[in-house]
């Protein structure tokens, strides 16, 4: 009967949309580094930790008001306790474990074993409880339960919680933990040396009335201070035998420090590439909008130069290390990833809809571009795809792969060759306009509400007269281009005016147009 209730409750929770939504939100808040509110939550917790430590320090020599003590003992601890319980809750899905066990038993025609299901669920929760981070969390809550003065030092465990909220600290910990074996070896070695040195110095010195070493603790204290090369000088050996021990311990101390330093340095060196890669991934995930270029080549470089004039950043995927190094030497955000692999996009957590402005497939072969296009289309049907076509015979294949715009340099050259043959000056004019190497550019002005009333009047002002030419208006709704528009031309919101002028003048025109339209 109880088993049936538990199973029913589990199915209810699994099917409950509000429950899943809340649990998902809590999980994102606590564990998802890409969740916007996690940063705010982490910052809030860091502030609480520092407040807690500040109160502890202040309490040493000052009397604090009841409110502060209450805040520290109950409010902060309660928040930490709530956080601990929430982490415990989201760590595993108990209802899922129960359902899995129920369905497993059902499949094998066995009676449902509630105890087995609960046992498995508890084991999963215990995984969290015994994790180092959870133990620190628990110790940080302790002052809440005990107001004994001694237990106040447990507040310092709250400082260790910083590892949860500061990513750089987490990274440091993960780097050092990669050398766990070496550190354990060092600790064991140091402990043995300290033990032997303490016993030896105690045996050599304790019976000498002039020696400051009187107890085994004095010997231990001296050994630790000496082996870590601090040497306060408050306790020094006075017998010859004791000084021999001191010389050996000093030498071993240098070895211990060198060994420890080398472990830390090698851990960082080995993880350097990983750290850099992590930083690049972070940089990409922080971008709100970007162009993605698949494949770095001389053509990519030219395209990037062109696109860099805008404000949207560019990310490059290149799997060839030599080309990748070239891209990075130009200061571009280039990642060593295979653009044709779905794993790349899931690993980088790229949101095609919200992050990517357009994807440019500029790899050296049509085969690679088709392969990449199919990968991207498998993941997103709508992201704009542009590709370079190397062999005209492959055009249909690129179209079938879902590429929106295909550019073939050979065809372009053929068409330009035709214009050059008949109208070389016109070619010069158009090419110069496109390359944007002169003081005159061709640009678009998107017409917004109210602009249509002031557009032509503004053109007549001395600043713009004969210096800003309107080639035409592209009527967005009718997809119709009206060349050389008259003053009577009607605009609609979203129409695009194509203008020719100095870029500074175009910018000024846009500013004035905006001001007048809203004024």
């Amino acid at each position, binding site marked *: 009967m109880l088993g049936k209730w538990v199973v029913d409750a589990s199915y209810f929770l699994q099917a409950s949309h509000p429950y899943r939504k809340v649990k998902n939100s809590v999980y994102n808040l606590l564990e998802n580094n890409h969740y916007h509110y996690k940063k705010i939550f982490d910052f809030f917790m860091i502030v609480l930790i520092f407040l807690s430590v500040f109160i502890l320090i202040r309490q040493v020599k000052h009397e604090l008001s009841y409110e502060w003590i209450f805040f520290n003992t109950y409010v902060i601890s309660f928040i930490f306790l709530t956080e601990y319980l929430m982490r415990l809750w989201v760590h595993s899905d108990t209802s899922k474990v129960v359902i899995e066990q129920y369905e497993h038993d059902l499949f094998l025609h066995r009676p449902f074993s509630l105890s087995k299901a609960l046992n498995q669920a508890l084991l999963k929760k215990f995984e969290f409880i015994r994790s180092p981070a959870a133990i620190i969390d628990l110790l940080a809550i302790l002052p809440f339960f005990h107001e004994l003065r001694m237990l106040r030092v447990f507040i310092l465990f709250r400082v260790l919680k910083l590892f949860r909220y500061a990513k750089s600290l987490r990274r440091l910990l993960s780097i050092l933990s990669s050398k766990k074996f070496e550190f354990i070896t060092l600790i064991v070695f140091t402990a043995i040396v300290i033990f032997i040195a303490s016993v030896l110095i105690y045996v050599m010195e304790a019976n000498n009335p002039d020696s400051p070493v009187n107890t085994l603790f004095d010997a231990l204290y001296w050994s630790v201070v000496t082996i870590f090369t601090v040497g306060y000088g408050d306790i020094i050996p006075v017998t010859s035998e004791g000084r021999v021990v001191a010389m050996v311990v000093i030498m071993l101390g240098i070895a211990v420090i060198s060994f420890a330093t080398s472990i830390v340095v090698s851990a960082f060196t080995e993880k350097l590439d990983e750290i850099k890669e992590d930083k690049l991934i972070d940089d990409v995930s922080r971008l709100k909008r970007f162009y993605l270029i698949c494949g770095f080549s001389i053509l990519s470089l030219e395209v990037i130069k062109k696109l860099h004039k805008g404000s949207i950043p560019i990310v490059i995927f290149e799997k060839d290390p030599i080309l990748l190094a070239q891209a990075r030497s130009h200061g571009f955000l280039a990642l060593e990833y295979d653009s044709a692999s779905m794993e790349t996009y899931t690993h980088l957590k790229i949101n095609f809809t919200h992050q990517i402005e*357009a994807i440019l497939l500029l790899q050296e072969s049509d085969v690679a571009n088709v392969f990449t296009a199919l990968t991207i289309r498998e993941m997103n049907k709508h992201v704009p795809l542009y590709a370079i076509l190397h062999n005209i015979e492959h055009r249909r294949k690129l179209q079938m792969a879902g590429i929106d715009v295909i550019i073939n340099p050979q065809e372009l050259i*053929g068409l330009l060759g035709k214009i050059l043959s008949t109208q*070389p000056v016109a070619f010069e004019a158009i090419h110069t306009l496109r390359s944007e190497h002169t003081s005159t550019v061709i640009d678009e002005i998107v017409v917004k509400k109210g602009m249509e009333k002031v557009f032509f009047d503004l053109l007549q002002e001395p600043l713009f007269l004969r210096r800003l030419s309107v080639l035409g208006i592209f009527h967005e709704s009718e997809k119709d281009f009206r060349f*050389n528009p008259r003053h009577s031309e009607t605009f609609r919101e979203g129409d695009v005016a194509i203008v*020719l002028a100095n870029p500074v003048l175009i910018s000024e025109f846009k500013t004035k147009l905006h001001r007048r339209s809203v004024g």
Partner: protein
Amino acid sequence: MKRTHAAIFGYNEYSKQILKQIINIYREITLFVANSEEMNAAANDGLSAELFDLGDDWGTIEKRFDVRTLSVFCALGNDAENVFLTISLRSSFESVFIIALAQNHESMLKMKSAGADKVMPVLQIAANVIGDMITKPNVTHVLHDILYEDEGLGVMEVKIEHTSPLVGTYLYDTDFNTQFDLILLAMVDHERENSFSFAVEGHNHHIDADDVLVLMGDKQKLALFKQWARG
């Protein structure tokens, strides 16, 4: 003098496309290839080609063509060869019109120094088109129609004859927009050492014979203007 003959050097994807586009423009087009492989490739496509050597003294060209009516397309496989071909042709023939292909901006400058009249920097052109398609799709669409479509809008350069009614006037004296429904894009001023400038740069040029006006507009209206400008 009108260019009636063309010579294309090199047989590759670029020269194939150039040949396809200019076939109706020139009275005669001759294909020159550097080796038997290219010769065979051309033959497979049903084209006859002639072998040439970069070390030639180009006597055959002089014998076969009136170089004043000849346009040459240097479309060899690499930039170094194209530069060498350009400089060889220019050193032999001053009046031949040389159009050269360059892979990048650096090679483009070399081609110009070698004497090419016009250079098509392949990668830069492709990059500009890709960039414009993404950032200025409407501009690209309009320019594409103007440049490549046979009907509708077009661009035309008009050389001012001595008899033209425009001779002796200033640019601002003529309202191209309202009078002809055309937009003046650019001008090559004979008085200013054939310097090229856009109309919107704000210079009220004095129009003389041999100046060149570049106009945009409906192809029929452009033709009418050309007729009118002839005088």
